């Protein structure tokens, strides 16, 4: 196990290194630059800015400077958000996104797994059909539509819920629902089909023949097998969701990390592009390792090599 984890972590570092090289290359290939604006800047100003932010040296040198900073925990200075460091931005916005995303995933998992199991249990009946309609909606409707609809209905028309920020628990309701809707729907469908698979297995038939109660059969025997695809899905999902959603954060005005990913690219904020990408990559890679370990816990037949 320890050997396995070490090996995986070794691969993780290699992956992150490759991602950093690719990101650095790509971001320098896109046209435009961080200091362009509608008002032309003088060559003296441009030179002063490039010197200040270390962009006056060759590209490989810039990469090495960035990476050596990174190894010392310094993610660089934002070129666009004047006077802020990437560390400050990422570590002040990530907790906000992580909290919102974490709650959303919990909601999605609990509701999705339950609904999926219920749908599988009453397959073909109206309950199943209703759940399938809702989950199809959840997959088909994009989050900005969900967000604006909820906002119009509950914020503007009914005036029940606030629509911006996260200052009180009530403020979480709309963004959490918006964020959770898609994964919830996806988990429901995933759960339903894997549960149906499990329920058709011989050992379930045996259990049923032996007179095991429906509840026990479902939760003790079938769920264990049915949950594996959910874990596979939940790992990367967790990484993506806790790192924030551009749409939800923009619409509900939440100061999370999700908006930074997009804004730094459109603004050509090079250190922020590198830092946010490496941050997300690290999170994803770690989540994948965690998921593999979780498999082992859920299904002892799986051997980690």
């Amino acid at each position: 196990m320890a050997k396995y984890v070490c090996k995986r972590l070794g691969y993780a570092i290699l992956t992150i290194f490759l991602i950093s090289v690719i990101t650095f290359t790509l971001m320098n290939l896109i046209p435009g630059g961080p200091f362009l604006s509608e008002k032309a800047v003088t060559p003296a100003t441009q030179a002063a800015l490039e010197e200040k932010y270390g962009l006056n040296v060759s590209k490989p040198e810039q990469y090495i400077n960035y990476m050596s900073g990174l190894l010392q925990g310094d993610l660089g200075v934002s070129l666009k958000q004047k006077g802020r460091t990437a560390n400050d931005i990422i570590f002040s916005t990530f907790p906000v996104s992580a909290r919102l995303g974490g709650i959303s995933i919990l909601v999605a998992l609990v509701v999705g797994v339950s609904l999926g199991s219920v749908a599988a249990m009453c397959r073909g009946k109206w309950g199943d059909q209703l759940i399938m309609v809702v989950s199809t909606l959840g997959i088909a409707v994009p989050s900005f539509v969900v967000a604006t609809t909820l906002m119009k209905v509950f914020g503007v028309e009914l005036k029940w819920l606030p629509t911006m920020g996260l200052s009180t628990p009530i403020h979480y309701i709309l963004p959490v629902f918006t964020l959770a809707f898609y994964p919830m729907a996806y988990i429901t469908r995933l759960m339903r089909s894997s549960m149906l698979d499990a329920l058709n297995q011989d050992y379930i038939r045996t259990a049923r023949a032996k007179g095991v109660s429906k509840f026990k059969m479902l939760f003790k025997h079938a769920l264990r097998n049915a949950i594996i695809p959910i874990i596979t899905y939940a790992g990367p999902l967790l990484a993506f969701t806790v790192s924030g959603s551009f749409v939800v954060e923009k619409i509900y005005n939440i100061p999370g990390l999700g908006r930074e990913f997009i804004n730094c690219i459109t603004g050509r904020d090079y250190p922020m592009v590198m830092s946010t990408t490496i941050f997300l990559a690290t999170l994803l890679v770690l989540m994948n390792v965690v998921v593999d370990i979780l498999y082992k816990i859920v299904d002892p037949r799986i051997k980690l090599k």
Partner: protein
Amino acid sequence: MKKILATILAVAMLATTFVGCGSGGDTGSTPDANQPEGSTSAPEISVCIGPEPETLDPALNKSVDGACYAIHAFEGIYKFDENGNTIPGQAEKVEVSDDGLTWDITLRDDIKWSDGEPVTVDDFIYSWQRAASPETASDYANLFDVIEGGADVYQGNADPSTLGVTKVDDTHMTVKLAAPCPYFDKLLAFPVYYPVRKDVVDGNDGWTQDASTFIGNGPMMLTNWSHKESITYVKNPYYYDADKVTDSTLKFVLLEDDNAKMAAYDNGELDYVFQLPIDELDALKEREDFGTINEIGTYYLAFQTEKEPFNDPRVRKALTLAIDRNYIVETVSKQGEVPAGAIVAAKVTEGDSTFREVGGDYFSVKPEDYEKNVEEAKQLLAEAGYPNGEGFPTFEYTTNTATLHLGVAEALQNMWKEELGIECKIAQQEWNVFLATRPAGTFEVARDGWIADYDDPLTFLEIFKSDNGNNDCHWKNAEFDALIDQAKAESDSEKRFEILHQAEDLWAEEMPGAPLYYYADTYMKKPNLEGYWDSPLGYKFFMYCTKTAE
């Protein structure tokens, strides 16, 4: 069962790790938390004039919303009144020599920073030298070129200390101008000329981030900047006119999304919201709380005048005349814009009149004259060798991706096709790419626009000088350049305006760009928010607002 429990526990632990991370982040903005003495229980005023600004440093700011944050927290030698006129701000009096070259400035003796320290001449001199220096990299450093030595300083050829400003004593200073500048008072009211405090600014790029180092001399002061959420100001108790300043906490909510803005306004979370969603404008215009700001700015098209066939003024004129501006402002942009018949915007003043009224339009923008314009356009195009558009190459119209600009592009494409028989393709570019395209000249016709920095025709005309970095049309005309230089050196106001009119006449004859409309912006304001005003430069003044119970 035990193992399932373990699984659930593991997932739960994982989840709580991330949920737990959140406890450190302060997303709950509590504006009362660090409210200083002097603020009372007046109801909070919440407004939205834009998303997160790049900076709150008045010298580095380049946006209109940023300027609005600056006018609340800082004040220059001059300030703007309700009518958009400049009146002395931090100055007691300003005396200008007869030749207009020497400005003797006496500061008020009761001006203080928000921490109680007195504002001195040294603060102004430090701030101007800092803003003009290329090291500071202010987008507006060029506005110091009117001061003696200013051009050399911002171009990096001279030390900032050579800027023509001298201290007489703590409250007196003398400014030497490079040439007479009738709008220097307006520049002195512009954020880049605002004073900042050396002891908090020097060597500290992050001084605007923290209320303890964000020291200003304006009517209000910062208590909190929650990034991407809100900027909160309260009255600066040390401001000389503090009695008139609102007792309410003023919260600038930093919203990006159009729908979010309107939702927050409609459910009462905002008292004022700026720049309304175009799709909803038709309905919003009918409401009583709707308002429009006519700005000093012109939306125009830049022709790449170095490329065929746009190197021919007849072609440029033909394309300009074939545009139905009334259609565009009424059905596409819809914010209450005014069709433009010249490049210098309608609101630019000339004495008691406006520059536009004196100079007139260069082509009629009346709806009934459109057909006549089209006829003239066809004739010009035929003269240029393209009768009925025959043989005219298919060209590209480049714009950045935005609903409004795409709408305008499609309308133009249709008008040119229908009226002149010429084909154009629309190329959309991402904003940052677009910003690089125009100065590089790698386009044929591109969307463009200019918002005045100060109320003077020069701000519009100067950008078309051959060597100007904003000359997106890449238009080079020695006669025009000479006129601009002449205007800049002229001390007699009347003669100066005459020269500027000549320059604009020449511009219109050559038509390197096609003026489309003069900008306007829309807002919604709750009726119980009183004392608000705005200026044609787009500044919005909330510091004297009061909010009564609805």
